[in-house]
């Protein structure tokens, strides 16, 4: 198993900078999930680590060894692709054994290793089939199997589950988590799925325009986002952003309400970030601000209520499933200030608010 680290690694296509001086360190056995909007360079970063994409500046180390110029095999990493990329003309057995065969392992060793991996992934009965005779989930399993037989020091996953249906996705997610526990290998995992990110990651890395916006445990990112971008990106439904200004004893919510909050230092908050579950509906005269219910979406476990609150815009409140408030009603909103975040004009988080 291995540590992976990037030192000011960069990628340029001509004049286009896709990855900018990026530093990232993975501990041995760590599970890091990379998220970010489409086109921010997640795949590029993963492929640079894999050695499939040239690193145009900076360095990449695996176990302390500089591999910036090394070929993909020399890096001893395995990659699982979104489209599986199974060899269509080979059976599952040969698909999984191809890398070992290229490494000139004796046939009996290949057989043993492939069968062991197939056992782990419950693929034994499919070994003689061709990829086109498999379901999506089975193909994904084979792709993972192909990765593990070579006993790589680390795994790279590029949206491995995004071609699967929702139920299968949950199963495979659990399986990957289990795999990580049993193999203890270092893993980097790119995904668009919030739940995958939150549940699998030891650490989440949020990227934007080829830069890391914040990295940390799922809890840290969720509870104390470092900036507006991360605050908006992590969490579903999205965090509400209420424009605000500092007042004598706390915050003035654009004249629509106010919150008492002791602020220290010269902080100049411009936005109050509050997640829907940190807001509650109360009677019109008792909340921190108020508005009219515009939409109410019953979701089973809870109800997502959208309140139009003047200059504060549309606020999403997570209310109990049996909330008594109806569309068109005027309601008050109570804000759990202790759980909220504050951001300044530039979008950086203000740490001093709790």
């Amino acid at each position, binding site marked *: 198993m291995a540590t992976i680290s990037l030192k000011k690694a960069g990628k340029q296509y001509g004049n286009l900078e896709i990855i900018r001086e990026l530093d990232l360190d993975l501990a041995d056995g760590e599970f890091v999930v990379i998220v970010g909007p489409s086109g921010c360079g997640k795949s590029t970063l993963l492929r640079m680590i894999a*050695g499939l994409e*040239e*690193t*145009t*500046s900076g360095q990449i180390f695996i176990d302390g060894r500089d591999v*910036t*110029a*090394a*070929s993909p095999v020399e890096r001893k990493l395995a990659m699982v692709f979104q489209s599986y990329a199974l060899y269509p003309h080979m059976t599952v057995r040969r698909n999984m054994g191809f890398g070992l065969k290229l490494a000139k392992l004796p046939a009996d060793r290949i057989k043993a290793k492939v069968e062991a991996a197939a056992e782990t992934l419950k693929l034994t009965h499919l070994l003689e089939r061709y990829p086109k005779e498999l379901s999506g989930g089975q193909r994904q399993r084979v792709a993972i199997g192909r990765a593990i037989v070579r006993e790589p020091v680390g795994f790279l996953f590029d949206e491995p589950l995004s071609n699967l249906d929702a139920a299968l996705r949950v199963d495979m997610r659990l399986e990957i988590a289990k795999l990580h526990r049993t193999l203890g290998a270092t893993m980097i995992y790119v995904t668009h799925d919030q739940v995958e990110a939150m549940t699998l990651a030891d650490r989440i890395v949020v990227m934007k325009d080829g830069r890391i916006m914040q990295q940390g445990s799922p809890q840290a990112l969720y509870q104390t986002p470092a900036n507006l971008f991360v605050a908006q990106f992590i969490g579903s439904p999205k965090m509400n952003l209420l424009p605000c200004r500092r007042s004598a004893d706390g915050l003035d919510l654009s004249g629509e309400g106010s919150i008492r909050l002791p602020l220290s230092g010269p902080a100049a908050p411009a936005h109050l970030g509050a997640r829907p579950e940190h807001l509650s509906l109360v009677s019109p005269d008792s909340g921190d601000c108020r508005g009219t219910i515009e939409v109410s979406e019953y979701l089973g476990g809870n109800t997502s209520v959208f309140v139009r609150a003047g200059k504060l815009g549309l606020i999403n409140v997570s209310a109990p499933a049996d909330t008594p408030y109806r569309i068109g009603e005027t309601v008050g909103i109570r804000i759990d200030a202790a759980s909220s975040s504050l951001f300044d004009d530039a979008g950086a988080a203000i740490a001093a608010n709790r």
Partner: protein
Amino acid sequence: MTKAQQRPLIQEFRLLATPVVLFLLVFLGFPAIVNLIYSVSDVSFETLRQPELSGLKNFAAVWSDSAFWQASWFSFRFGLLTAVLECTLGLFLAIFLSPLIERRSWLMAILMLPLMVAPALVGLMYRLVLHEFVGPVPYYLWTYFGASLSFLGPGSAFWTLVVVETLQWTPFALLLFYMAYQAIPSEIAEASAMDGAKSHHRLWYIELPLMLPTIVVALLIRFIDGFRVFDNVYVLTGSGPGGSTASLSIYIYEAFFKQGAIGKAVAASVILFVVSFAVLYGLNFIASRRKGAIR
């Protein structure tokens, strides 16, 4: 440093492309150089290894040779006429027959049959077809119409050749157009039907414009193949009567093999070489510009 990783990859690709490049250098590069040298030399079969530079004499000889201009004119006219005829006929058949072919694809196999036969053999076959004693065409014309035509005579040889070429290669145009026609998404036809378009409107305003790129390509390919025609013309008429059906290819062939005029044949080759590549690269350039504009 950073290039170090990419270099072996590129080098391996280079290695993979090397055989074909070497092959082309030997079998086309070398001939091209020989062409250039001989075209400005005084050579005969006796002095092949010691060509003497003679400036542009050969080009002058070609330039002032009326047979060269006659052959150029034949090639151009032949290419243009057959291309237009084949594409018109092919387009009509592709659209008109598509309801039949859609359901029975073996019909297309029958129509494609002429494409599989060597043009040289087809040319020879027409020697039989048009033969005054054993050929069915003169026979039927005589029995039913009392007409006796000279198909390969001075006035008619050109047109006979045009018909021969057109009948063999119309299937090519037909096939291209049929594919293009089938590739038009049915939603477009349905949408226009919802808009109240009659079928001839649909043809004119929707289907033909969508097929236009294919039509242009087919015209081009057929023009080129008609322009450089050799096989069927050569076996059917040689170059006669009186050199009236010599294409440029035949002109070069005869200058070399029949007259032994190496210098003239080679100079004509060089002219054709330069003109062809200039035209082709020009077309490529225009095509890539158009593509860029559309994207």
